[in-house]
């Protein structure tokens, strides 16, 4: 006697599950592309950082473990470059925060022409960094520069000054160009945040006799902390990776006095063909920038205080 086993009932997916499955099916191709062009290069670079990897086709790569990292850490140029990059980051971002806050306050007080001022802020920020660098290189030009022309007309200098040839002045001049370009970003973020603050607190403090500085320092500034944090992290990480403006204005000179860590990475990777060193430097830069972001979050992010 034969028995017929009962057929297993087909599991029915709910409508939500069906939609979810369709959604995933549609997203997976794009996700694969995104992972391919973002995650894979990161993984590949990480692997590369453990190899002696000269540039070229079918080049033999030798596994050196942490050799590339140790070579950099022992290298005096690396630490000098880190110090120089920190200097650029601290001064540049510091100036941007102070000036950005001052301008945000100015716009927030709605003086005559404040809308024009706010619009004007976008112009330096909208200029591509490469164009900004080329513009400032011409401004600083010893023989044809606008800076020399202006100072001569004002009678402040008697001879044209070759600004970019002074080892201790080159970096501050690059910083000035960077601040001009990116300060508006900070100002706009802070101005937008100021506009959302409740007026009542400010008014109540004024009634209680607090002067303008006290109201700014003790009321607005603490309330602006989340916006400051966003601007600070975005700018500090960006400033630490500075490359293009240095490349255009000074090419790391004079005498390496504007050589930053990303520029050193570029030199190793492309002109010098040391891809393993370049990859390890890239990861060291990542470690530095992530550490910076974590420090800022640790000291500035207190959501309970702003609620």
């Amino acid at each position: 006697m034969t028995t017929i086993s009962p057929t297993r009932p087909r599991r029915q997916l709910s409508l939500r599950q069906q939609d979810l499955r369709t959604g995933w099916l549609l997203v997976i191709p794009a996700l694969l592309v995104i992972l391919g062009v973002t995650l894979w290069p990161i993984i590949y670079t990480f692997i590369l950082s453990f190899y002696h990897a000269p540039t070229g086709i079918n080049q033999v790569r030798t596994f050196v473990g942490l050799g590339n990292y140790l070579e950099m850490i022992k290298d005096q140029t690396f630490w000098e470059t880190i110090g120089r990059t920190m200097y650029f980051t601290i001064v540049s971002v510091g100036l941007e925060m102070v000036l950005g806050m001052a301008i945000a306050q100015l716009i927030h007080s709605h003086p005559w022409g404040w809308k024009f001022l706010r619009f004007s802020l976008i112009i330096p920020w909208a200029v591509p960094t490469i164009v900004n660098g080329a513009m400032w290189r011409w401004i600083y030009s010893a023989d044809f520069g606008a800076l020399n022309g202006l100072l001569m007309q004002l009678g402040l200098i008697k001879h044209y000054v070759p600004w970019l040839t002074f080892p201790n002045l080159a970096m501050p001049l690059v910083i000035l160009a960077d601040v001009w370009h990116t300060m508006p970003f900070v100002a706009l973020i802070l101005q937008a945040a100021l506009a959302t603050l409740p007026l009542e607190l400010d008014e109540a403090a004024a009634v209680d006799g607090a002067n303008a500085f006290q109201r700014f320092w003790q009321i607005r500034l603490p309330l602006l902390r989340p916006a400051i944090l966003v601007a600070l992290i975005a700018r500090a990480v960006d400033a630490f990776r500075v490359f293009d403006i240095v490349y255009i204005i000074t090419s790391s000179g004079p005498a390496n006095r504007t050589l930053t860590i990303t520029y050193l990475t570029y030199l190793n990777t492309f002109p010098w063909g040391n891809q393993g060193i370049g990859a390890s430097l890239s990861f060291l830069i990542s470690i530095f920038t992530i550490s910076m972001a974590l420090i800022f979050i640790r000291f500035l992010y207190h959501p309970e205080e702003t609620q």
Partner: protein
Amino acid sequence: MRTLNKITLFALALIIAFGMVGCQKKQAGGVVIHVLTMDQAGLKPAEIDQIAREFETLNPDIKVSMEYVGYDYVHDKIVTGMAATPPGYDAAMIDVIWPDEFIKAGYLLDVTNRVTADMKANMFPASWNGVTRNGKIYGMPWLMDVKYFMYNKDILTKAGIAAPPTTWEELIAQATTIKQQGLVEFPIIWSWNQKEGVVCDFTVLLFGNGGAFLDASGKPVFNNEKGVQVLTWMKQSLDAGLSNPSSVSSDENAVEADFMAGKSAFAVNWLFQYSDSNDATKSQIVGQAALAPMPVFAAGAAAGIKGSSVDGSSSFAIMATSRYPDQTWKFLTYLASNEVQTKYSAEMLPVWQNDFQGDALAKLLAATPNNPVTVPAFLAQFPYANERPTVAYYNEASAALQLAIQEALTGVKTPQQALDEAAAKWVSLASK
């Protein structure tokens, strides 16, 4: 039906996603070859474009897509272009200092068997030296350039100077006279910024003082007394206000701009500066620029050195992974042909030595208004062109030397200290 729709949607999403990644323009009928070169020395982009169009007319099945970038970007564009398959470029301009690195990297196609007997016999032997390693040829000679000594005739006449200097010591004396008379504030301009130009100028001066980069065993010797004397002289010329202090941040384009504005009496630069100086759309000194043999140091002259410059030649190489080596070689052959090089010789003289002989010479001299000046200057200067070291790690070695020279010029270190550190770096690089 519902399943079919989902499969269709999935396939569509897949096609769009990967299709966007793999977008590539295809040329109907024939092939497109991509060629990278510089927009600085040699021919101007408009001239090369014109040559490419002439070639396309003669070869309708080949289209030439030219890409021009500043000299400083060519090397890196080649490196990144070679990371792709097929490569970003079928051919690229190769500076005389790059072949060793690129051959080691496997970037350059061996074209030994494509070079004809006519090419070998009639192009300057020096032009082949730049692209030949271990008996194999890796490129087509294209531009033979050296650094020239240029001066402003009008300024020298006003200063009462009858002839340009023959030694660097005479240059200092003449520059002092010009400065004292207030004709220009800084009589001499150089490309001494932290790039290859400063190494080129150092080469000119070093060999003109009887120095060298390496000894017979390959050991660096540019830090010996000859090299230190040269770097000390460079620094002193800046301190005396005779060399323009902006030289420390100037490249060759900045040197040209300064010279063409009439702000300098003397300049050292590639040939393009001469033709540009006579271009009224760019220059304020049309008709005033002149070429003279590069001076040497008095000590070098006493030791029998008759001239010293630096070889700045370049070639075109076919990329090893190019899909169209035959078509590319055809274009390069046209680009470097006698006829084309003679026709476009205003800023770049031919690589063919037979163009400088007999009837061809008369034709070359008459080809452009500049040639009666530039051809004799080339023949006088090129025999004294010195080579920078031909090593695969040249770029990194050069960077160390650039740094050393800048450190000395800006007073960060003494010439001896700076050159010693660069020499130590070269030893370290050679041992890797």
